[in-house]
């Protein structure tokens, strides 16, 4: 029983990271049809800048206020980096899919090189309050507290995105744009402005995810973003392009499948199961579990 509880909560924590990476990615592709391979770079840079700011406080770096500050810095730097990428590079490449892939892959590679150049290739221990490295007993399972923080952050982000998409005019524009962006423009709405905002929002969520990935793993390495990006893409495809609810359900499903298969079968089987699940979804419901059939317009 305690093993199941531990796997369940740890899986939910991992799912939270997948969700933070995948939700922005999903909205960006859903609205803009941009396959953003630079999303992992937003995550890595957000995580490292959060780390840098937290570390600069020396002995105070393990305090709660500094940890909260690192979350803000991670999200803000992810957002700023995303804004620069969209305004300087992506904006010129709408409707040019091959160039988008080349540019975003290039940004991803350059960002990893930049991080290695500044912080080195070895993993850095992520500063966090002592409570994070302790465990809480849940039905006999000793669950690391950092998992609860990741889950809480993802729930807050999900609630925020649900409110944004469901209750605001801006959310209405995003939801309509995911369905048919040329018709949104034909209603007199500057959909390109929404593109920038969604890109920035996605970058902020990725940057937040970077800090939480450092917390979850207790360390941060230059490859953190790219390793999460692979699973984030799988989550986006399974959940349905442009669907935040789909991203949430798929993130939890993928993470739990991974955790349980890795434990009860053998290490590595979880990744195989996730790829098989992706194949099944692509064969049975190619538009994903929660997406309407997307029109390319």
């Amino acid at each position, binding site marked *: 029983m305690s093993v199941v509880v531990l796997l369940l909560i740890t899986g939910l924590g991992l799912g939270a990271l997948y969700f933070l990476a995948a939700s922005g990615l999903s909205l960006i592709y859903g609205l803009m049809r941009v396959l953003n391979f630079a999303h992992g770079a937003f995550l890595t840079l957000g995580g490292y800048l959060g780390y840098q700011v937290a570390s600069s406080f020396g002995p105070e770096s393990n305090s709660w206020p500094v940890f909260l500050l690192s979350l803000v810095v991670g999200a803000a730097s992810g957002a700023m980096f995303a804004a620069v990428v969209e305004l300087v590079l992506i904006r010129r490449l709408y409707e040019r899919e091959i160039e988008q892939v080349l540019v975003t892959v290039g940004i991803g590679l350059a960002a990893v090189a930049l991080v290695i150049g500044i912080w080195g290739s070895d993993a850095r221990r992520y500063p966090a309050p002592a409570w994070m490295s302790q465990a809480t007993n849940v039905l006999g399972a000793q669950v690391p507290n950092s998992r609860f923080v990741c889950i809480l952050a993802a729930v807050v982000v999900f609630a925020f995105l649900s409110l944004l998409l469901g209750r605001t*005019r801006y959310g*209405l*524009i995003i*939801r*309509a744009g995911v*369905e*048919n962006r*040329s*018709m*949104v*423009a*034909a*209603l*007199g*709405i*500057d*959909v390109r402005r929404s593109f920038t905002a969604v890109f920035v929002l996605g970058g902020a969520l990725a940057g937040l995810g970077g800090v939480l990935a450092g917390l979850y793993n207790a360390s941060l390495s230059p490859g953190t973003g790219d390793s999460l990006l692979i699973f984030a893409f799988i989550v986006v495809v399974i959940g349905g392009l442009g669907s935040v609810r789909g991203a949430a359900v798929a993130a939890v499903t993928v993470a739990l499948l991974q955790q349980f298969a890795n434990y009860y079968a053998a290490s590595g089987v979880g990744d195989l199961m996730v790829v098989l699940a992706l194949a099944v979804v692509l064969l049975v419901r190619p538009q994903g579990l929660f997406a*309407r059939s997307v029109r390319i317009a």
Partner: protein
Amino acid sequence: MNARDEPDHSALSVRNLDAWIGNQQILHSVTFDVGEGVTALLGRNGVGKTTTLRALLGLVRRCGEVRLAGDRIDDLPTHAVVVRGVGYVPENREVFGSLTVAENLTLAARTPHPDLDTVHQLFPELRERAKQAAGTLSGGQQQMVALARALINDNTILLIDEPTKGLAPRIVEEVAAALRVAAARTPILLVEQDLAVVETLADDVVVIADGRVAHRGPARDFLADQAAVTSLLGVGTREVTPS
């Protein structure tokens, strides 16, 4: 350029409009004006009627001169053209299926006080179905949403593309009645295949053939000329029913 081709201060004035889809040129030097009432844009399938409307909105690559109430709009992006006062009802409705009826209208409203009264007067069903997802509506109801999105704003012109396509006769009458009300206050450029509807609504016609304007003039005169109708719109492809 003869006197008829000089830009005037009609609601919409189009001069030498060329348009492309991909690398294929669809429109060649299209010139016409839209004044008061309804101007029907006619032609066989695939001659460029829908492309003309999309080119006016900047949804396809185009060049030429387009004036809205005298002001050039051909250098503006789509959203800016619409904000200047162009209402658009696309072919196949293109309502946002995952949004409710009310959300579709909210999204389309360009002012804080859209004309919902007129819309609900014309289509009372939309008030009853305000919370229903537009994707679950019938074709006729979706057409009402598409029309309502254009009619809630105060426009200089309405571009309406085949609003009766695929609708039951009763709904066609309802849509035609709504267009008549709309035309009383806003000029309409109407693409329409049903010549009975054209006959009851249109004041003028512009006929396109092979991407070029083949005929311009009063609707009544054109429709009375059976030889021209047959030649320009195709034999056996139209069914003209008495109104």
